[in-house]
């Protein structure tokens, strides 16, 4: 079921187009990674979808509510974690949550606050002022605040930015738990590894939407799959045998490593190995070349730069 649907969503600030013609759909229960360089329109998109700023063109429906008409109802069903935790440093963790809970139709605020403080591992520090917390604890408290009313959609804007690796890992674990709870998460991040670890699908934005798919599909789209065969020692005969195979599109030798591009990576791999062994090759390992999401992302950004340059010339 689609829970976020945008159609031609655009936002202009005077002469600057921040978001241009964004059309996409997010399924209920998925984590969508929203990637893009600084100034690409990620935060503007989140603010539009959260009903904080209005689009200049296009429309969007989030959890059944139009973002430009039904803002109060929309705010009841979304949660938002902004770039900065935005806590009241002189109030205790408990009071911070109670304050925000007071804006939602929650029957037993104390019980709800207790539940989320415990979930975030902050129950023991509930009476401590938020200002005394570490960055990671503040981020967890802000997450509790965004989640406390049990939203259908959660917008996270750079949730691990500025956190040390341990705190960032804790936050990622919490995000996974939220997904397990059925919450749809719209995750804006610069951390490509994080996006790959957490997200079902990845959207790349550079003012307009450049790609939207699973990390694996994006890899396939931008990089051919290659099989890496590690031999005991370099052997030019093996390279000739491999190149002669009908299902091999390209083969390269780098010392004792052969990089082979196959027509069908899964089906052709056993035949490749058999042919190499029969030709006397001493195969140590066979693996697939791994392309990271970062490589995919950089490829996308380079393509964008090239198309921009072409457009300008």
């Amino acid at each position: 079921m689609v829970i976020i649907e945008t159609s031609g969503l655009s936002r202009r600030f005077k002469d600057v187009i921040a978001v241009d013609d964004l059309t996409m759909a997010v399924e209920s229960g998925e984590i969508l990674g929203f990637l893009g360089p600084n100034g690409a329109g990620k935060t503007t998109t989140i603010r539009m979808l959260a009903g904080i700023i209005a689009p200049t063109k296009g429309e969007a429906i989030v959890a059944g509510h139009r973002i430009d008409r039904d803002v109060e109802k929309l705010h009841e069903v979304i949660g938002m974690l902004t770039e900065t935790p935005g806590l009241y440093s002189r109030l205790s963790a408990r009071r911070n949550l109670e304050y925000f809970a007071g804006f939602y139709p929650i029957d037993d605020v104390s019980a709800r606050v207790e539940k989320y403080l415990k979930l975030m591992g902050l129950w023991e520090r509930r009476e401590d002022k938020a200002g005394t917390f570490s960055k990671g604890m503040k981020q967890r408290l802000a997450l509790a605040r965004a989640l406390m009313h049990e939203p259908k959609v959660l917008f996270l804007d750079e949730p691990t930015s500025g956190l040390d690796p341990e705190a960032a890992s804790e936050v990622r674990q919490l995000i996974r738990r939220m997904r397990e709870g059925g919450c749809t998460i719209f995750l804006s991040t610069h951390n490509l590894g994080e996006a790959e670890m957490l997200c079902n699908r990845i959207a790349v934005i550079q003012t307009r939407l450049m790609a939207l798919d699973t990390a694996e599909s994006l890899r396939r789209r931008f990089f051919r799959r290659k099989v890496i065969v590690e031999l005991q020692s370099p052997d030019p005969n093996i390279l000739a045998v491999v190149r002669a195979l009908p299902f091999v599109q390209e083969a390269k030798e780098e010392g004792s490593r052969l990089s082979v591009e196959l027509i069908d990576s899964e089906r052709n791999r056993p035949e490749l190995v058999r042919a190499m062994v029969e030709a006397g090759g001493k195969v140590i390992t066979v693996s697939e070349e791994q392309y990271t999401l970062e490589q995919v992302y950089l490829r996308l950004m380079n393509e964008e730069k090239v198309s921009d340059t072409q457009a300008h010339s």
Partner: protein
Amino acid sequence: MTLRRIRNILRKEWSLLFTDPNSALLVTLLPFAVVGQFILYFWLAFRFGGEGMLGSSVFQTALEKLLQAIPEVSALPASEQLLVLLLNQFQFILLLIPVMIAIGIAAFSIVDEKLTGSLEALLATPVRTWELLMGKTLAGAIPALLMTWVSAGFFLLVVSLLGWGNLSQLVLTPSWFLSLFLLTPAVAILSFMLGVIGSSRAKDSKGAQNIALIVVFPILALIGIQVTGIIWFTTLRTLVLALVIIGVDIIALRAAVRLFQRESIAIQWR
């Protein structure tokens, strides 16, 4: 739900107010400083000004109007007539207390939240703009108003300790009570509303304070108008003034909601 949300804002604002030593001192000490300062000024005027001051053309018209409003004053010696004239100004001097507290507190109410980033999180909740502004206004106006009433009691106590109890009885007219219980709340709400508007429009806390300062001038003008006798605030005039300011309060709330642009707050304050 609206009442619950406003109460929620009040509780939070009061928790923050009384955990900030500067704000807590401002609310609790400033009223006594204002009252003490003016009583000292009155005492100096009574002790050293006397008939000389009354002879001044500035006070002549005011004295005539005072005698019309409170005929018993004519039987008093000149120095005591001057004192009654000055004590009578206190109903407007008290108005300075909520105004000054508003400049010190309300001016920061939105700016602070913009700077700490809590406002964006707040704007993503179902709170309505008018609920937020009303909550913030009342959170400052209520303690300021209570302190103004405490100050009025303190004023009467000091005046009676100085042996001017019989004179203060003369100025405790219906106009005085109308001013204290109708005009002062209306002015307190207006001051805080303007402070909150300033805070939501300003780029920093200094700018917000400058906007909030605007409300001081009409109050000073009120004192000036009465002390020079240009207009004497009878019960009816005080009532009309209070009703006008209540009307302005309503207009100010509507204006505040229109001027509170969620978009520019979210965009300009990162």
